[in-house]
């Protein structure tokens, strides 16, 4: 069997690292976010979309994060399944609500935006449907975890589900392209240059980076909390049993 990577086997090292890394990512997120928002807000209103274009600065980053977080969750699931490492499991568990939150934000901002843009809150279009299913997968993951009593069992079951989800997500993502779609195609990055005007492009990039570091910070904090919770539980168990 391949040995587990050192950062997994040594929670102490992780705790030491995250102690300073979490606040640092948080600070970076604030700086980038403020810069991005300021740039974005000072941009001229779009000729077509007027003021509502500014939802873009929340919508695109949250949409990307919702997928990125699932990738993190899947990798953590794999690590915890192969090496049975509690730290990886804590990471997967900590990521799920964050990812669900980003997904929900994407759905909400998209809906808010869809109303003025498409004249409807919701259409059964490819992107939207796959995003909704991503949300369902997050919900299923959390529900599975929450409904098992034994932590070790819950961890392995959830890790299996995390991997199944990783297999299925791309399939859903692409299978819905069978449908003629209303939603925007790739426009930030695409061959032949961005479709976004530079005034929008740079703020979006800044805010995406801000979201990523915000996620990093929150994730580390949540993993730390998870580690503390498990330690406290183990200690309580020891104390109770004498």
């Amino acid at each position, binding site marked *: 069997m391949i040995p587990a990577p050192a950062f997994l086997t040594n929670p102490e090292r992780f705790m030491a690292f995250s102690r300073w890394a979490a606040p640092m990512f948080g600070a970076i997120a604030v700086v980038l976010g403020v810069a991005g928002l300021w740039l974005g807000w000072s941009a001229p209103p779009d000729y077509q979309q007027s003021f509502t274009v500014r939802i873009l600065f929340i919508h695109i980053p949250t949409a990307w994060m919702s997928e990125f977080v699932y990738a993190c969750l899947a990798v953590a699931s794999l690590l915890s399944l192969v090496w049975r490492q509690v730290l990886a499991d804590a990471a997967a568990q900590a990521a799920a609500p964050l990812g669900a939150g980003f997904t929900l934000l994407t759905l909400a901002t998209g809906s808010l935006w869809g109303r003025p843009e498409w004249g*409807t*809150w*919701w*259409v*059964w*279009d490819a992107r939207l*449907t796959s995003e*909704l*299913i991503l949300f*369902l997968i997050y*919900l*299923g993951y*959390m*529900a599975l*975890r*929450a*409904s*098992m009593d034994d932590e070790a069992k819950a961890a392995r079951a959830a890790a299996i589900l995390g991997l199944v989800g990783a297999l299925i997500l791309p399939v859903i993502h692409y299978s819905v392209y069978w*449908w003629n779609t209303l939603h925007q195609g790739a426009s930030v990055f695409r061959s032949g240059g961005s479709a976004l005007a530079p005034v929008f492009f740079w703020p979006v990039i800044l805010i995406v980076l801000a979201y990523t570091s915000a996620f990093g910070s929150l994730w580390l904090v949540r993993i730390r909390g998870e580690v503390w919770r498990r330690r406290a539980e183990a200690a309580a168990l020891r104390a109770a049993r004498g």
Partner: protein
Amino acid sequence: MSRLGALLARETALAWGKGGGPLVSVGFYAGVATLLPLAIGPEPARLAAIAPGAAWVGLALASLLSLDRLFERDYEDGALDHLVLSPTPLELTCAVKCFAQWLATGAPLALAAPVAAIALGAPLNLAPLVFVCALIGGLAFAFTGGIGAALSLGARRGGLLTAVIVLPLFVPPVIFGGGALASYLAGLPWTSGLVLLGAYAAAFVALGPLFMAAACRNALS
């Protein structure tokens, strides 16, 4: 009274589970509402036409799915024996069980139903009616479903059998509720559908427990 309160708490807890009960049922409901447009195509006009009806059928199916275990577990593990050997009449016990089922799953589903209908393209002003229909309908589904669940005790394939027994009982509320929604959309008088739905629910809240108790006693003997 404290006995019935304890039963209500237990049944709700069993139906709800510790880990996010309403979350789970609402998630399921969202899933049902998602599959339909995937299968019949996303054209908004076509979808909008069937939106309220589909949300409504989704509610019935979700209730169906959660009914399955109303009595069966208690029957199989012997808890029903103990529930019977009590000063509380079995009819009342059955009624509390169904009511708890409705509290734990019907009510959250009723909250989700308007969302699903609007997501499928129903007009916004339909939402309150969908909610009320779902709330009352959920009561009817819980109490009619309980009859099926009790009747199929001890049968093989209890789950599917429940479904087959229960579906005919679900037909009238589905028609009444669907009719009320359709009339409302068409600008016609819609209260009669709602009243019929309420009357149906009331009748089964009153009569259902009698059948359930008889079926349970029969299964035990």
